[in-house]
C-alpha cells in the first residue's frame, strides 16, 4: 500500500457507535428528534451480539400474573444486584420497560402470545413473577431485526420526503472507531477506518453515543462474539470518562463445555425457567445446598416444593435452579472443584425428564438445534453438560441516569452493556434487553437535547494527524509479536487470575502481567496490507481489551469483599461498608487508576418499597436509621 492514505470525511449531528439493541434504539430516538445520525458497526448491519440474547426482555406488563408491576421489578433488580445498583437507573428501567416492549410491537415485532392474545411472559432467575416477553429462545434476534427494520422504515420515509434514504440516517457497516476526538474538552467527532479496505474515516459530530456492548473476549471462555472487546469502555477511558465497578463480571452459569470448540457458548437460562434441573455426577440435585441466607424465604429447600412451584407459584417457593446467576455459577464451580463434575468439567442440566419432546422443540428450538448440531446431544432425551462462561460486564461507563451522558466528557453518551451502574454487582437475566431499550432511547434523547443546546466544535488538524498516525503504526513496526498470540496470553491471564474466584496474590500477579503485555503491545506487528486484514483489526481490539483487563484487575484487588459478580476467596462475605462504595477507574495516559466514590443513596419513597428486614441484610445500622434520603 502506498504511503498516501485516503481519508473520508462525514458530518452528522450524532454518531452512534454500535448497532446492537442500544445503538439502534438510540438512533431511532435521535432521528425522531430531527437529528442527522450515523450508525457505525464493526460487523454487517444486523449481526450485533444482541442476536445472541435468547431468553427474553424483562418488563412488568403483568400479562401472566397481574400482581407484577414496576415496584416489584425494581425490588428484584436491586436484590439481584445486591443493592449496589444506581437506584435511579433501576427505577427508570423498571418504570419504562413495558412501554419499550409495547412500542416494538408497533414496529412489527411478533412476541409469543398468552391465551388472551397478549404478549406472553416467562419465568426467569431472580424475577418474582413471569416477566420475560419472548419469542421462543431467539428474543434478541427479534429485537434487533425489529429495530433494523424500523431504521429501514425511517429511511424509506426520508426518501419519500427528502429524496434520499440516507439523508437523516446512514449506516456505516464494518468500520472500526479508534478514537473519540475532543477539542477544548468537548466531543468533536470520532476517527477510525473501514475494515474492508483500511481507508480512514473522520466523522464530525457534536454528540457521540457509545453502544459497543461488552468485554467478553478479554476472557478465554466466553459466550461473547469477537466483537465484545470493550471498545466503548476503552474509548471512554481515553476520552477522559470514568468506568464504574469494573470488577463485576457475570459468569453465566450455563455455557456449553463440550466439545472444546464450542466451550462457552450460551445455554439459555430459559432451560431452567422451563423446568431444567441441575445435577452433579452423583445424580444429586445440588442447588438446594447453595441457597444463601438472604434468599432463604424465597427459594424452596426441598425437591417436592420446588417441583410443585411449576404448577402453583402462589403457594410454593421457587426452585433454587432459578437463583440469580452469580449464585448458580459459584455453586457449579464449587461442585466441579470438589470432584463432583461431569466428564468434561461441567455439571448436568436436564430438561428431558420434565418436558415432552414436542414442548422442548417448541419452547427451546435453538437450544435443541445447537446441541444436536454442535455436540451431537439430543436434549429431548439426554442431559446437557454445562459450566460457567464469561457473559456480561456489569461495570461500565459512568453516566447520568436520566440522559445517559458520560460523566466528565461533554458530548459523550453511553447506553446498554457499555454503561455501568444499572445492574449493580449482578444482572438478572432478561434485564439486559430491557436495559438497552430503556437507556438506548434515553441516550438518543439525551444526545438530541445536548446537540440542540450546544455549539459545534471544529475538529483540529492536529487531532486528525494523531489519530491517523496511530492507525498506521502497526504496519510501520517490524519484528514485534503477533496480535493473535498476545491476545491468547491476555485471555490466559484473565481466566486464571481474574476469573470467577479471586485472591489478592493472583490479582497482584495479573496486574504485573497485564503491565508487561502493555509494554509488549507497543511493538505488535501485523502482516499483509490494509485490505480486510483481521490481524490489523485485532491489534486495535487488543489495546481496548488490555485497558478493560487492567481496570477489572485493579478494581477487583481493592474490593475486599464478595458480592455478585466479584468473589474473593480471601474475603468470602459481603461487607456493608463496600455496599456504599463504587470503584471508579480512570486513565492517566499511562495506566488505569482506581479510586472510591460514594454510591448515591435511595430516596425515601424507594427505600420504603422494601421490607426493613431485607434491607438489614445489606445495609449498616446507620443507613437503616436514616431510612433513605
Amino acid at each position, binding site marked *: 500500500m502506498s504511503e498516501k492514505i485516503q481519508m473520508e470525511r462525514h458530518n452528522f449531528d450524532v454518531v452512534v457507535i454500535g448497532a446492537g439493541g442500544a445503538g439502534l434504539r438510540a438512533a431511532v430516538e435521535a432521528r425522531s428528534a430531527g437529528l442527522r445520525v450515523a450508525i457505525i458497526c464493526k460487523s454487517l448491519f444486523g449481526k450485533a451480539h444482541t442476536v445472541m440474547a435468547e431468553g427474553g426482555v424483562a418488563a412488568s406488563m403483568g400479562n401472566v400474573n397481574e400482581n407484577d408491576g414496576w415496584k416489584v421489578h425494581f425490588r428484584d433488580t436491586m436484590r439481584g444486584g445486591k443493592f449496589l445498583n444506581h437506584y435511579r437507573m433501576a427505577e427508570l428501567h423498571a418504570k419504562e420497560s413495558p412501554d419499550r416492549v409495547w412500542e416494538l410491537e408497533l414496529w412489527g415485532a411478533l412476541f409469543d*402470545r398468552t391465551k388472551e392474545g397478549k404478549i406472553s411472559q416467562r419465568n426467569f432467575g431472580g424475577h418474582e413473577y413471569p416477566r420475560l416477553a419472548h419469542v421462543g429462545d*431467539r428474543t434478541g434476534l427479534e429485537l434487533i431485526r425489529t429495530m433494523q427494520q424500523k431504521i429501514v422504515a425511517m429511511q424509506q420515509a426520508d426518501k419519500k420526503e427528502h429524496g434520499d434514504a440516507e439523508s437523516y440516517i446512514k449506516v456505516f457497516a464494518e468500520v472500526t472507531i479508534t478514537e473519540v476526538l475532543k477539542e477544548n474538552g468537548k466531543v468533536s467527532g470520532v476517527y477510525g477506518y473501514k475494515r474492508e479496505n483500511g481507508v480512514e474515516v473522520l466523522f464530525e459530530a457534536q454528540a457521540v453515543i457509545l453502544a459497543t456492548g461488552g468485554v467478553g473476549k478479554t476472557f478465554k471462555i466466553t459466550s461473547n462474539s469477537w466483537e465484545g472487546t470493550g471498545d466503548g469502555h476503552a474509548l471512554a477511558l481515553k476520552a477522559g470518562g470514568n468506568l464504574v465497578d469494573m470488577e463485576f463480571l457475570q459468569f453465566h452459569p450455563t455455557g456449553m463445555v463440550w466439545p472444546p470448540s464450542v466451550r462457552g457458548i450460551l445455554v439459555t437460562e430459559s432451560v431452567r425457567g422451563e423446568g431444567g434441573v441441575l445435577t452433579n455426577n452423583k445424580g444429586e440435585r445440588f442447588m438446594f445446598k447453595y441457597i444463601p441466607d438472604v434468599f432463604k424465604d424465597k427459594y424452596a429447600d426441598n425437591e417436592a416444593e420446588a417441583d410443585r412451584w411449576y404448577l402453583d407459584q402462589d403457594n410454593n417457593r421457587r426452585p433454587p435452579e432459578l437463583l440469580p446467576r452469580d449464585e448458580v455459577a459459584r455453586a457449579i464451580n464449587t461442585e466441579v472443584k470438589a470432584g463432583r463434575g461431569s466428564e468434561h468439567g461441567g455439571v448436568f442440566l436436564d430438561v428431558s425428564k420434565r418436558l415432552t419432546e414436542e414442548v422442548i422443540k417448541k419452547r427451546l428450538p435453538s437450544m435443541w438445534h445447537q446441541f444436536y448440531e454442535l455436540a451431537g446431544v439430543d436434549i429431548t432425551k439426554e442431559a446437557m453438560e454445562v459450566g460457567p462462561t464469561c457473559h456480561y460486564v456489569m461495570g461500565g461507563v459512568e453516566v447520568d441516569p436520566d440522559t445517559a451522558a458520560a460523566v466528565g466528557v461533554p458530548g459523550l453518551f453511553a447506553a446498554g452493556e457499555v454503561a455501568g451502574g444499572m445492574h449493580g454487582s449482578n444482572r438478572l437475566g432478561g434485564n439486559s434487553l430491557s436495559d438497552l431499550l430503556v437507556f438506548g432511547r434515553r441516550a438518543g434523547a439525551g444526545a438530541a437535547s445536548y446537540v440542540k443546546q450546544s455549539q459545534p466544535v471544529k475538529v483540529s488538524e492536529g487531532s486528525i494527524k494523531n489519530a491517523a498516525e496511530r492507525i498506521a503504526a502497526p504496519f510501520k513496526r517490524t519484528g514485534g509479536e503477533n496480535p*493473535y498470540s498476545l491476545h491468547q496470553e491476555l485471555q490466559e491471564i484473565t481466566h486464571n487470575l481474574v476469573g470467577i474466584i479471586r485472591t489478592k496474590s493472583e490479582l497482584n500477579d495479573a496486574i504485573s502481567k497485564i503491565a508487561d503485555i502493555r509494554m509488549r503491545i507497543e511493538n505488535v506487528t501485523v502482516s499483509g496490507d490494509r485490505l480486510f486484514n483481521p490481524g490489523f483489526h485485532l491489534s486495535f481490539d487488543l489495546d481496548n481489551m488490555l485497558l478493560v483487563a487492567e481496570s477489572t484487575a485493579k478494581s477487583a484487588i481493592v474490593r475486599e469483599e464478595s458480592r455478585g459478580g466479584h468473589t474473593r476467596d480471601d474475603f468470602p462475605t459481603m461487607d456493608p461498608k463496600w455496599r456504599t462504595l463504587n470503584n471508579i477507574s480512570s486513565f492517566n495516559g499511562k495506566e488505569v487508576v482506581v479510586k472510591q466514590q460514594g454510591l448515591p443513596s435511595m430516596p425515601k419513597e424507594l427505600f420504603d418499597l422494601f421490607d426493613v428486614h431485607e434491607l438489614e441484610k445489606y445495609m449498616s445500622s446507620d443507613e437503616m436509621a436514616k431510612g433513605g434520603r
Partner: protein
Amino acid sequence: MAKNIKLRIWRGDANTGKLEDVSVEANEGEVVLDVIHRVQATQMGDLAVRWNCKAGKCGSCSMEINGKPRLACMTQVANFKEDETITITPLRAFPVIKDLVTDVSFNYKKAMEVESFTPPADLKPGQARMQQIDVERSQEFRKCIECFLCQDTCHVIRDHEENKKSFAGPRFFIRIAELDMHPLDMLKNRKKKAQEEHGLGMCNITKCCTEVCPEHIRITDNAIIPMKERVVDIKYDPVRWLGSKIRKREGIL
C-alpha cells in the same frame, strides 16, 4: 486427538486470486470455522473471513464448502473423510472483497425496496391482541438470520448478474410473506407487488433455497408457493379477474 487436515482456501481480492493449499491441525468436535481461525492465527495472519457468534445465530460466516453454501460455524470437520481436501471458497453470487469475504450490499439494497410494516393507524401500545396460531406463520420467517445462503444458491441470480436488478431473492420473498401474513399489517397488494416488482415470477420453485437454509425455514413451501398460488388465482380466474375490475377489489391480492 489432534490430526492434520488439508484445506484448499481461496485467496485473493476483486481482481485476482487463486486456491491455496494448507495443512492444519484439527481437534475433536471442531467446525470448519475453528480450523480457519487456526490457519489465520498460525499461517495466514491476514486471511479475511467474516464471523460473529460462532453458534449459528448471526449468519455471518457464510461461505461455500466443497461448493455447497454453508455456515462455517455449523459445519463439523468430522463430516469429511479423513484424507479429503476441504475446499473453501467465498459466496459465488456476490463480488469478492478479499479471500472469503464478499460484498453483500445487494441484500441491503433489496431490503430497502420492500415496503415496511404498516400497522393500523389507531393501534395503541399494549392493545394488540393476537393468537399464537396466527403469529406463528410469520414467526417462521422471522427466524431468518440473514446469512444470505438462499440468495447465494438461487440460480436466478447465482450466475446471472443481469437478473439482480429485477429479482429480490428468497430472503425477501419470505420477508414479504411475513408481512403479508402478519396479523397487524394493513398494507394491501403485497403479493401482487412481489410478482410485479420483486420478481417472484422468475422463481421456478426448485427449492434450492429451502435446502441450504440453516434455520430450516420452509421458504418455498410456506412462502413462495402460497404467494404464487394466490397471484395466479386472482390473475387467471376469469370470474375473479372480472370481479377485481368491477368492484375494485384489487386490495385482496
